[in-house]
């Protein structure tokens, strides 16, 4: 039980990295990117390719992949996402589903459908663990990923709170038109946001490939998990993604403890229950709002 909860919390760290990018895009550009999971998987394949074929040290491969993902995000927003935004809610859905199909099948076409993993390239880190009292063993890799997620979220928080770009991102989130009237080029800020979101997706992809096996069609399930974490944590709240990721992770690992098939089911049910709870309550009662009311800050706020 305690073991499953610890595993779930650590899993939540990975979800938080993946969900933070999705949430950032939802907040600043109001764009639901259904290819977010596929883009994470794409980054993972890129790293695996660099490491396996070019024998590049894994850290170097990740460092090289991040700017590539950032550039890709910038280009996607400039040439694809922003243009389909004008067409209401359906066109972005078609576009990102289409993009997802392109990425999944492109990866399949280039790398075949074999499952891949970075686990083979990280030495004993893949299985090394600390022993805690009560016969609980905690994997070192999940702990490192969790720590990385906290570092990522703290950096994002610092970026949003204390930099020119961060202030402009928050202003654009709160009121795009007023941001433009304050001299902020909202389109540039949105491109930068998607670039950051893709860097986050890349990091998540690296984490995913280190801790598990992936195949070209892993993306959509990861998107569902990310969205669930975002909704459980409260849309637009940065630390909510960590809270949501942890709740999702705990639900999943508790389910898996009973039966492997229950891993996904428990996560889904918690997600649906949180949505239901929020609908019944007055307005939104996500965990993120709870945290926000405690901390008094967020990336997206209620209008005045």
């Amino acid at each position, binding site marked *: 039980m305690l073991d499953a909860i610890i595993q779930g919390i650590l899993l939540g760290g990975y979800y938080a990295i993946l969900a933070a990018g999705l949430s950032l895009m939802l907040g600043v550009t109001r764009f639901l990117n259904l290819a977010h999971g596929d883009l994470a998987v794409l980054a993972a394949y890129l790293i695996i390719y660099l490491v396996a074929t070019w024998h590049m040290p894994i850290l170097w491969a990740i460092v090289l992949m991040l700017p590539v993902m950032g550039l890709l995000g910038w280009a996607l927003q400039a040439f694809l996402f922003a243009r389909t935004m004008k067409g209401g809610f359906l066109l972005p859905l078609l576009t990102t589903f289409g993009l997802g199909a392109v990425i999944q099948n492109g990866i399949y076409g280039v790398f075949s459908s074999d499952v891949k993993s970075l686990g083979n390239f990280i030495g004993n880190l893949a299985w090394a663990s600390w022993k805690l009292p009560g016969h609980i063993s905690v994997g070192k890799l999940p702990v490192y990923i969790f720590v990385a997620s906290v570092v990522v979220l703290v950096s994002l928080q610092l970026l949003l709170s204390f930099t*020119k770009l961060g202030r402009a991102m928050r202003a654009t989130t709160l009121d795009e038109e007023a941001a433009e*009237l*304050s*001299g902020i080029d909202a389109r540039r800020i949105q491109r930068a946001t998607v670039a950051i979101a893709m860097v986050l997706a890349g990091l998540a992809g690296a984490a995913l490939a280190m801790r598990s096996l992936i195949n070209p069609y892993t993306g959509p399930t990861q998107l569902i998990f990310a969205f669930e974490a975002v909704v459980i944590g409260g849309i637009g709240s940065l630390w909510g993604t960590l809270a949501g990721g942890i709740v999702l992770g705990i639900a999943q690992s508790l389910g898996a403890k009973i039966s492997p098939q229950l891993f996904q089911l428990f996560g889904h049910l918690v997600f649906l229950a949180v949505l239901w709870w929020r609908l019944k309550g007055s307005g939104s009662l996500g965990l993120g709002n709870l945290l926000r009311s405690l901390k008094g800050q967020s990336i*997206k706020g209620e209008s005045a």
Partner: protein
Amino acid sequence: MLEVKNIQARHGLLQAVRGVSFSVAKGEVLGVIGANGAGKTTLFRAITGVHADMTGSVLLNGEDISALRPAKRVAKGLAMVPEGRRLFPDMSVRENLQVAGEHGRRGDWTLATVLDALPALKPILRSLAGNLSGGQRQAVAIGRALMTNPDFVIMDEVSLGLSPIAIEGLYESLGQLKASGKTGIVVVEQDLRRAMAFSDRIVCMLEGTITLEGASGTLTHDDITNAYFGLEPEAHERSAAHA
């Protein structure tokens, strides 16, 4: 000089602005009056570029800026205090000002000079903009516009919803801004007396067109009432005689 020529703007099928032209010089104050629905807000949203469904041209210091995005117009020196203030509610007052200062033009207006001009902002710098009173919000909105160092600033419904005391304070600050002579001001004001007192010239809008324009000293109260309600002068006199 800010010149707008033959502005037409639509909301879908409804033509809200039908061929409006006017100009403002640097240091001049143009007062705009007109009933709700006369097309004032749509006109100014079209001039600043946030209302895209429009034709006509906007010239700023001789340069045609009508194809530019709102942010680029701000960079050329055109700012707007929008209707409803439109502050960033989850950001502090300081951040609201800072973000405009970082993206607008460089110039004499800095956080320090804006705080001197709008001293009411000093004690609330750390408050969230969403928690302010109406008068404080309007002051932040004006401060935010000034932070972009505009040559011209458009203030939509500048005293709407403010208490009489807040309006007094507001016009005191605007008076100083006017006295500096560096900025052209377009101010939409529902209070005729206020508008007449503060503006150099008055423009009255009705059903999307300008029905009256003149130096504020030369216009009588009756002229303006007629233009405001779209009454023929004779008809107005007749109804006045009946009363």
